[in-house]
């Protein structure tokens, strides 16, 4: 097996609690199925600036203006339930990179 560096994902939403918890749980569940181990930092959008440095990429349910040079994935489909599989696939691929 190829050893991969453990990725850190920054999951951000308006509260840093509500929708980001739903997204975090779904990412962890999807990653577990693929036997991937990840770090997740949950935060408010206004705190992204402070945490972006430690993250490999950003997943957010809200509008993101500046992703501080990191790739960002919009996870709104994980909240609405429409297009959920597609987004999870994108996130898993990003973890495997």
């Amino acid at each position: 097996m190829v050893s991969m560096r453990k990725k850190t994902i920054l999951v951000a939403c308006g509260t840093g609690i509500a929708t980001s918890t739903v997204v975090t749980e779904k990412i962890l569940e999807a990653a577990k199925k693929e036997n991937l181990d990840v770090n997740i930092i949950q935060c408010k959008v206004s705190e992204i600036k402070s945490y972006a440095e430690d993250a490999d990429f950003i997943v957010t349910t809200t509008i993101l203006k500046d992703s501080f040079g990191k790739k960002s994935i919009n996870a709104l489909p994980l909240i609405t339930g429409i297009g959920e599989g597609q987004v999870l696939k994108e996130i898993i691929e990003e973890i495997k990179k």
Partner: protein
Amino acid sequence: MSIIKYILDLGATVMLPIIIFLLALILGEKPGRAFRSALTIGIGFVGINLVIGLLVNNLGPAAQAMVEHMGVHLNVIDVGWPASAAIAFASKVGAFVIPIGLLVNIIMLATRLTKTVNVDLWNYWHFAFTGALVTAATGSLTWGLVAAAINAAVVLLLADWTAKMVQDFYGLPGISLPHGFSAAYVPIAIPLNKLIDKIPVINKIEADTDTINKRFGVFGEPIVIGLILGVVLGILAKYDVKGILNLGISMAAVMLLLPRMVRILMEGLIPISEAAKAFMQKRFQGREFYIGLDSAIAVGHPAAIATALVLVPITILLAIILPGNHVLPFGDLATIPFMVVMVVPVTKGNVFRSILIGTIVIGVGLWIATDVAPLFTQVAAEAAFKFPTGATEISSICDGANPLTWVILQIMRLF
């Protein structure tokens, strides 16, 4: 009936897990997962209780000392939305709010009174909060449940009414925001915005979002706000240096820990929320319906962030200078984005106007929050949240200062 009464009297940390367990089973969840989620919710309540204790035990005496030394009567502690939500769910109305909210939504969808399928179960706490205040005021659980149902219905109508505006401004197709706190400010913001249109000079002003976000960025970091407020309050309370620094760190801790505890509650609620979402979406799907989501999804917009950042210091200033206000803003200084997130589209993203409207609704909100403080404190005590006996009262901006909650409360009091 006596079994239901027995369960309700067990206290939130026991009562809610039992109800959530049963509800999860009814919605088709496996017993194992239902049990785990119910237990997690109970643990969340225990955690929130601990942190509220940390907050009130530290901030309470400091606020009292400040009253004595400075003559500033800010002795009602703003415990913030995490505590308010927990108190609301832990109330007797809270035990029934999820089935009631779903039922109101289903009836209104079936009768075509609304287009919004509200899958944001977590924010049903706003309806429970209104109901809990009404129950505390009238002594009747029935009236509290009626109030919660009315609140749920009004919020659905507000979500429909604002859907187009929200979808266009935030670029969220097919979505509406049936949020009990955010939506309540739209009916106030629209006339105020029209009024601003008529004032010369003022109606031309626009503020630069980027500059604001840079200069006021620190107000977006709750732990920094907690530290600064703790230190300043320590100084005003004439504590010694050791006391001042300890209060600062304790308050920073509350800002971080309280939302973390609520996260545990949220985690427990996810299986039910997902089951309800699947149930609702299977029956009401397609182009004619909006998916009702948490307004948190729009809070990241730069104009909403900028407005909220400037309103943090304004809120503190208003609390000090407004005659008749007794609320010491704290926990909800981090919640102001939710107050303005649906105001910003009304002003078409004009940050200056949004700040102006925000200042007015916060000023009035502080009076409302002061007014409901005794009821708020009573509801919290009945939900078995621990308080040091004494003069300390609690309230919050979300939803203690919510005008819609207050109006429903006043109407229900007439009966």
